[in-house]
Every structure is written in structure tokens, then in C-alpha cells.
């Protein structure tokens, strides 16, 4: 590897925007400062460049509270838009998005696993990590467009002129609201997933020692084969209950329908979008089943799920907290309303 290529590898520690503007200048100066005929930079020089790049990244990144708001789908103040541009256009955006967005949505699961490491183990853990990564990869485009739009740019990011200069879009961007043939099915599943996963969250938080549906109560023992037998049945019962609740909410609560209709849809390719939805909803369904059937009474599960649906609907309709609802978790919460709407006869929608 030549001197120049070594330096090019090392200077990747600088932010992308910095490299675009000043990278060649740094490489020129590094070459001029190098001893004549040097084939490889000294380790100290490489460390110097890498360290300076990392310090520059640290210096120009947004403070934690601003970063958190951005990660949850909110706006980022304009001084950090160059950082945001790097984040959204970087090669590993999908991985960052997976960790910050999908992992944030799965925070309850992570907390419960820390409390109770036996909750999910073996191949199931591996499968869940794989599904989470796949979900992150598939939904990255949607979230990239969401961040662009939320911060005043076209969803494609094309209005960005060049680093350091901003084009502010004042008009609101019209987004298509067309649906996909498989979307209603996905939403039915999402409806169930939200309720069961909410129940799982509550169960994980309280680690209730008994499991109950209506008048049936069971004492929990993860090692018992009978418990394993019941897990499947209670899971199915939770799903049925969730469907019923979703339908009831959409039928009796008009604002849920309004909120659902206002929810912008992903503008990506239909097939890709469908796969992303199935992956996301499948993950949550799986988590919901594991959680709701192992830690908490299912009736309380359903009650909390319904309460969250109402809160989500109110918040979205009023525009309050809407940016924050548009995380993966928030998307699915509102899609539950859509799912419920699709259960209704056409004349009542």
C-alpha cells in the first residue's frame, strides 16, 4: 500500500463532510511533510490523523438531548444539519438506524432480558437479532426520508445543495397515501402485535409470578412442560383478544380512524415496503407472544394495550408528540388504528 493509500485509510476517521471539503488538502500537506521516499507513514502519524479525526467527530456532533430527539424522529436544530446529512447519507446509516431506532423500540425487551436472562435464550435470541437487523435494513430508507422531510428537506434529500449550505423548504411535502394489497393483512397482525407486546412490557416490568386469562390462573414455572403447552394456547388467545380490541377501538372511537388516515405511508417500492412491514410486525408479534404468555395476566395486557392505542390516537390527531410517535414503535401504534379500520365494513370507514 502506498503512502497516499495509508493516509486515505487513516483520514476516514474525519467526518464525511470534512473530508469532502478539506480532505485533499490534508493529504497534500501530509505528503509534503513526509520524509522523501517514505513508503508507509509512521505509526505516530497515523495515530495523529486518526485521533484528530475522532476528536473532530466528537466536537461537531449534537449534544445528547438533541441527538435523542433526532433519533426518536424529531427535528434537529440547524447548526447540526451538516452532521445530520453525514448521518443520513453515510454507508452505515442502516446499522446506526437499527441500533438507535429499532433497538430503542425494543428497549422493554432488553430491560427484561437483563432482569431475567432466561426469558429468551438459545436459537431464539439469535433469530431475534437476525430479524431486528433485517428490519433495520429494510426500514432504513423509510426513516431516511422521514428525517429529511422532518427537517425541512425533500424526502429524497436532493434539495441539499452542498455541505455547509442549506435550502429550506417552506411548503409541506405531499406524500402519497396509496396502500398496498397486503397492507391490511400486515395491519391486522400489527394490531395484535402492539397489544401483546405492550402486555409483555408490563409483564416484564412487574415480573408477575402468575399467568391468568379471565378465571384461569397459572403459577409460572419456566421448566414445567405443562407451562410450555399452555404458552401456545395463551398466545393465540392474546391474538384473538387483540383483534377484538382493535376493531372495537376503531368502531367506537372516530379519532382513531382520523389519526390512521393522517398517517403518511412509506413512499418506497411496494414489495420492499410490504416485506419491511411484515418483518417489523413479525418481530413485535414474537416479542409480544413471549412476553404476554410468560409474565403478566393477559386481561391487563389487553387493557394497557387499549389505553396506549387511545393515547396514541389522541396524540397523533392533536399533532402533539407526533414527531416522536413516528419511531418504529409509534408507527405501529398508529397503524393499529388503520388495522382496526380495515376490519370495518366499507360504509363505516
Amino acid at each position, binding site marked *: 500500500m502506498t503512502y497516499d493509500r495509508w*493516509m486515505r485509510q*487513516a*483520514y476516514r476517521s474525519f467526518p464525511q463532510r*470534512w473530508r469532502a471539503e*478539506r480532505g485533499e*488538502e*490534508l493529504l*497534500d*500537506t*501530509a505528503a*509534503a*511533510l513526509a520524509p522523501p521516499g517514505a513508503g508507509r507513514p509512521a505509526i*505516530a*502519524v497515523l495515530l*495523529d*490523523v*486518526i*485521533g*484528530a*479525526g475522532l*476528536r*473532530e467527530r466528537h*466536537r461537531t456532533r449534537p449534544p445528547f438531548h438533541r441527538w435523542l430527539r433526532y433519533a426518536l424522529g424529531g427535528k434537529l436544530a440547524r447548526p447540526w444539519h451538516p452532521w445530520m446529512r453525514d448521518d443520513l447519507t453515510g454507508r452505515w446509516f442502516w446499522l446506526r438506524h437499527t441500533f438507535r431506532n429499532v433497538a430503542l423500540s425494543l428497549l422493554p425487551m432488553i430491560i427484561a432480558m437483563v432482569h431475567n436472562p432466561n426469558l429468551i435464550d438459545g436459537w431464539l435470541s439469535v433469530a431475534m437479532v437476525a430479524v431486528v437487523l433485517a428490519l433495520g435494513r429494510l426500514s432504513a430508507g423509510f426513516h431516511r426520508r422521514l428525517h429529511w422531510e422532518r427537517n425541512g428537506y425533500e424526502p429524497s434529500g436532493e434539495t441539499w445543495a452542498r455541505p455547509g449550505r442549506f435550502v429550506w423548504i417552506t411548503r409541506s411535502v405531499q406524500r402519497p397515501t396509496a396502500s398496498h394489497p397486503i397492507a391490511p393483512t400486515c395491519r391486522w397482525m400489527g394490531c395484535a402485535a402492539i397489544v401483546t407486546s405492550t402486555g409483555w412490557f408490563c409483564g416484564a416490568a412487574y415480573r408477575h409470578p402468575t399467568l391468568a386469562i379471565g378465571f384461569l390462573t397459572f403459577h409460572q414455572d419456566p421448566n414445567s412442560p405443562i407451562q410450555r403447552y399452555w404458552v401456545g394456547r395463551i398466545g393465540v388467545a392474546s391474538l384473538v383478544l387483540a383483534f377484538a380490541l382493535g376493531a372495537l377501538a376503531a368502531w367506537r372511537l372516530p379519532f382513531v380512524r382520523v389519526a390512521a388516515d393522517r398517517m403518511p405511508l412509506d413512499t418506497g417500492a411496494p414489495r420492499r415496503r410490504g416485506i419491511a412491514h411484515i418483518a417489523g410486525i413479525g418481530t413485535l408479534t414474537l416479542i409480544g407472544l413471549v412476553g404476554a404468555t410468560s409474565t403478566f395476566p393477559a386481561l391487563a395486557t389487553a387493557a394497557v394495550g387499549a389505553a396506549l392505542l387511545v393515547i396514541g390516537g389522541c396524540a397523533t390527531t392533536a399533532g402533539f408528540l407526533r414527531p416522536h410517535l413516528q419511531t418504529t414503535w409509534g408507527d405501529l401504534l398508529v397503524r393499529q388504528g388503520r388495522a382496526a379500520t380495515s376490519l370495518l365494513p366499507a360504509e363505516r370507514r
Partner: protein
Amino acid sequence: VAARKNRPSYWILAALLEGPSHGYAIAKQSVELSGDAAPMGPGTLYGTLEKLHAEGWIEACGDQLVDGRTRRLYRLTENGRAAVVHETEHRLESAGRVQRILGATR
């Protein structure tokens, strides 16, 4: 204060006292002024230039063609000049105090 805490900052500001200069010349001049006490790698140089620029102590002032390559020129701002003067006086005072002690103990 930042120039005092961070030695490369001081030498880079000092290197720009004579007028606008580009990265390579600043690095050479800094090493010379410090008597080889402050080695200036490309990372330290550009990291510090970036920081000084953000603090408003230096500014870019055009390009210069050197050996067929375009190099950006930097110059001190009024604040930058004031900072380097202040720091130099501080160092002279400190050195003077030490020298007085040395003279007394001989």
C-alpha cells in the same frame, strides 16, 4: 486560555503572525518556532486549524498555487492576534519569575 491549554494552538497562531500562510508552511513554521518541541502531524495541524477557525481566531483568505497544487491560505483575526499576544506575555512573565529564582540561587 484555549491557546494556553493546547500547545499546538499557540504555535499555529504564532506561525500566522507574519501573515497569511497555508497548512504545510504553518506546520514547518510551528516546529521551527517551538524549537522542535511541538511536533506537528497533519492530524494535529488540521484538527487544531478547524478548532481555531470555529473559535474565530483564524480565517481562510483565499488559495495559493504551490507546486501545481492549490493550497488554502489562513490568517489571524483580531481576536487570534490578541490571544497570541496575551499568551506570549503570560509565558514571558512566567519565564521571568523562574529566571529570578535561578539568579537568586546561583
